[in-house]
């Protein structure tokens, strides 16, 4: 008979360094498909503005060139938002707006039925394993995907020892349908 699963508890702070690391390790956001989508949206804006500019030029309008700088500004803003630094600024602002503070303390307890997230205010959220969409094991930690696209990044170094990390990995692999390993 197998031994009962001993809960594994980790505590950490959600700060700039953690968020940057989480963004770097989010496989869904860094996928070629996601990048292609962003580039296609940018190309659509540039193309629309270029066509509009050419139409204006054919009509000998004085300000025919106006859509070009507008497109440049839009693309630059878009590029800024797609960089980790740009996204970090918005996430930080969202945290301050919703929770009233940043950085925030967080602790996670992995158990046999799921994992429990405890925030700095004491609010607790329990997520059973069957409700987790997928889990991706990377060399530096775990990316846990929840329904709706939310992702929890759990770095390996937050675990007290490699044995407890391995126990969580084994348990997750056995209980979550969409478990995969990525180098």
């Amino acid at each position: 008979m197998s031994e009962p699963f001993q809960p594994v508890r980790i505590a950490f702070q959600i700060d700039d360094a953690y968020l940057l690391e989480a963004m770097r390790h989010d496989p869904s956001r860094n996928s070629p498909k996601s990048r292609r989508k962003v580039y296609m949206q940018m190309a659509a804006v540039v193309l629309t503005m270029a066509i509009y500019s050419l139409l204006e030029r054919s009509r000998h309008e004085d300000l025919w060139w106006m859509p070009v700088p507008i497109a440049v500004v839009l693309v630059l803003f878009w590029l800024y938002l797609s960089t980790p630094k740009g996204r970090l600024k918005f996430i930080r602002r969202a945290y301050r707006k919703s929770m009233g503070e940043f950085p925030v303390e967080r602790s996670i307890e992995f158990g046999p039925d799921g994992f429990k997230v405890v925030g700095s205010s004491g609010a607790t959220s329990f997520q059973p394993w069957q409700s987790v969409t997928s889990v991706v094991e990377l060399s530096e930690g775990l990316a846990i995907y929840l329904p709706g696209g939310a992702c929890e990044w759990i770095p390996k170094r937050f675990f007290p020892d490699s044995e407890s990390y391995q126990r969580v990995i084994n348990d997750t692999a056995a209980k979550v349908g969409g478990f995969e390993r990525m180098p």
Partner: protein
Amino acid sequence: MPDPTENNLSQPFEPVRIAFQMDDAYLLDSIRNDPDRSAFRRKKYLILSPIALAGITFVILSAVRHDRQSLIPSCGMLAIVGIMLSRWSPTGILRERRKRLQQMFRQYPIGHKIEFGSDGFIVLLADGVSNFHPWPSILRVVEQAPGLAIYIQTNFRYWIPAGTFSNPHDYRRTIELINRKVARVERMG
């Protein structure tokens, strides 16, 4: 005669349980009873009025100058205003929230169970997901005639319709508990 207030404080709070479906009717009720709805409306009109005004002015100018091609950007501006008005209307917000809930829970409507206790309240959602919110973590509660708005974040609230309580006594007891435990309780309407 015993003092009823003292009695309430000394007696342990008997948990109050409610269960309801998060469906279109519930979501619409929640949107219509949003305590910050008037502020949202003000913001909405503040943003959209200048765009609509500019669009209408350009349409009139284009018509006076018989310049058909200038109508394109003006109509674009008015189309943006129309789309935003539709998205920010109660039915537009309902559509968005329904879509989000379907993405999050892979089902709709969603059954909700809430238990109010002396330490906080626990929300049991579909798929076995549960959230516990201790009373000190609650930012604000707005008591209205149709129900309670409990803010767990500045921009996230639970809407608890008064009709979901099994009897008025339980509803009154919950309000009394909230008044004792939450620092910021407001009454509206």
